[in-house]
């Protein structure tokens, strides 16, 4: 119990710190939302036959005459048509975020509303002058902040108000308007805070609430399953440690046995550590790829990357251990007329064992970073690194935080594991 007390204290402090931090980072965003809301409330946007009145972010209104508009969001596209006499052909503009290109056709009647190429029946919406009220709430749009200038939607009430950003031509696409929904925001700052779609720092209990769904997100048969991801990353780190530890010991022994070799290689060893791992990883993967070893199919690239950064503390520490021999003991061995090899195996090597493990412990954290970085370069959907990248890209902040905590715990666990090995291989050390 006593051993876990420090961890417990850290945990409590972190949780207590989580709440003010969440407010600290979330409130400015909420304030911005509130301002945006007021701004849009001020503006009136009207749509009549062939005319769109767009509200601009500076508060002024501009009248545009376009015959039709497409409202787009992630899950649906809705075409508003004001001219009944034509068959309309709308093409998705190329400037879309996802870069996809698709044709879709709309047959129109006066005042038709088409969603995702499907004609909406009168029952699905109610149309008033400049307002479309949906019977069902349209989905919230996460892309909101990419185009803050133009869109209006109150998703809570299921209303869409049309608008357009007139300033840049790219946004007013041929024959269409792109209209994005905005999140609902309350009247007060705190209401806005709680209606923020994403929180850079979520409240700890929000993260806690995500834990179970997060673990259940993928079944064990899926390589994206969190337990499998964690195991995959541990495996990557452990193979890094094995490789880095072996290279470290060999180099350290060579350095101690042949001083000139140390003088020749040590500067390079140090220089190797100044190359940022993030720059090295792609190059290394390219080189290995030439030999048919890819990170998609093999753990070797991960092991090499991790070993590259974790062998260094092992070398430094082990060299120190091999050298730090009490001169009296060397005299003692001399008095026994011991051979150099006997001195190495009976004195230097065992003396260096605790030093080796100390270096390996330092290298563990580095090896974990190496494994995570390597995984972000892979698209085999394995490992925590891939998960973190994926959740960041899809904006699941709470899940990113869960992954952060899991990575941290994994680091602690791996260091503890190395500590256990140390106890096993150097049982003489006092605890």
């Amino acid at each position: 119990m006593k051993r876990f007390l420090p961890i417990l204290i850290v945990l409590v402090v972190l949780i207590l710190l989580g709440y003010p931090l969440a407010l600290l980072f979330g409130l400015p965003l909420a304030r911005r939302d509130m301002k945006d809301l007021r701004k849009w409330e001020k503006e009136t946007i009207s749509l009549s036959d062939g005319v769109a009145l767009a509200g601009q972010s500076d508060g002024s209104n501009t009248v545009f005459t376009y015959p039709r508009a497409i409202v787009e969001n992630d899950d649906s596209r809705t075409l508003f048509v004001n001219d009944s006499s034509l068959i309309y052909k709308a093409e998705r503009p190329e400037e879309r975020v996802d870069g996809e290109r698709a044709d879709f056709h709309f047959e129109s009647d006066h005042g038709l509303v088409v969603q995702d190429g499907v004609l909406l029946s009168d029952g699905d919406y109610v149309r008033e002058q400049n307002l479309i009220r949906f019977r069902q709430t349209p989905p919230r749009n996460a892309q909101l902040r990419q185009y803050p200038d133009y869109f209006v939607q109150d998703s809570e009430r299921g209303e869409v108000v049309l608008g357009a950003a007139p300033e840049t031509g790219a946004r007013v696409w041929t024959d269409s308007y792109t209209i994005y929904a905005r999140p609902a925001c309350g009247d007060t700052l705190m209401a806005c805070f709680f209606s923020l779609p994403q929180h850079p720092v979520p409240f700890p209990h929000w993260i806690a609430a995500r834990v179970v769904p997060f673990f259940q997100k993928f079944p064990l048969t899926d390589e994206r399953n969190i337990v499998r991801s964690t195991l995959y990353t541990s495996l990557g780190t452990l193979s890094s440690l094995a490789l880095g530890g072996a290279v470290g010991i060999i180099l350290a022994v060579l350095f101690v046995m042949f001083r000139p070799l140390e003088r020749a290689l040590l500067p390079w060893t140090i220089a190797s550590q100044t190359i940022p791992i993030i720059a090295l990883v792609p190059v290394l993967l390219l080189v290995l790829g030439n030999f048919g070893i890819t990170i998609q199919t093999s753990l070797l690239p991960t092991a090499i990357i991790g070993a590259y950064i974790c062998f260094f503390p092992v070398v430094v520490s082990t060299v120190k251990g091999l050298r730090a021999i009490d001169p009296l003991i060397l005299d003692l061995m001399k008095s026994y007329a011991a051979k150099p090899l006997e001195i190495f195996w009976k004195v230097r090597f065992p003396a260096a064992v605790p030093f080796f493990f100390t270096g390996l412990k330092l290298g563990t954290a580095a090896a974990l970073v190496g494994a995570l970085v390597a995984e972000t370069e892979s698209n085999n959907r394995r490992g925590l690194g891939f998960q973190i990248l994926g959740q960041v890209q899809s904006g699941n902040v709470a899940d990113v935080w869960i992954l952060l905590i899991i990575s941290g715990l994994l680091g602690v666990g791996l260091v503890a594991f190395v500590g256990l090995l140390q106890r096993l291989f150097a049982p003489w050390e006092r605890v």
Partner: protein
Amino acid sequence: MLDTQPNSKTVQISDLITIRDLNMIYRGRGSETVALKNANLTVAEGEFISLIGPSGCGKTTLLRIMADLIQATSGSITIAGKSPRQARLDREYGYVFQAPALLEWRSVLKNVILPLEIMGFGKEERETRAKKLLEMVGLKQFHRQYPWQLSGGMQQRVSIARALAFDPSLLLMDEPFGALDEITREAMNLELLRIWEETKKTIVFVTHSIPEAVFLSSRIVVMTPRPGKIEKIIPVDLPYPRNTDTRESKAFFDLATEVREALRDVH
């Protein structure tokens, strides 16, 4: 030259160590330190010789030359009729250092076994010998412990057992009890005397302590510093076996005084 063959331990020489006109000069950058000047000494087999003197008088240097841990600048020295180097290669002596110098990753037993491993003793003999010696120094039940689990005095006893493990005829001891408190030291002195009488080794013992030298030795070599040389050799004719009563006898005090005066003359 049959009798100077290496490894021949059959040679019986009553003088185990012969030192003639030994000089040791440490050369530093532009300076020379005379650590030992014209030292002459003969140690007979079975003797207990103490080297005593203040710091810098060359007593440790002399011991290290005997052990071939350093080489003298000039003069001659023979150990059991051999050069110090040959004596070292033939494992003629056991050396006990100021500090226990135990290998911390080895248990007490394994520490005593260490020289036996290096000298190629069989596995079973190693264990029997080491256990017997640990029994002799009174540490039989501690053989599984690691050195750090033992007190300073116990560690030094392990180091003595280790020096005796391969049964050398000569024991070189460099202030082995210097780091111990007075009470432990006196107990260790008694124990060392018992071991000496039991094993009939020749012991060369370096010390700072006058009572210790008087209590243990059959002869005391008083040394003086700058340059380090042998000032006087005082025979100690206290009868063996000695015990705590010996320390309180008048003869003991007289000898201690003699040694003290010999040392004082120098300053």
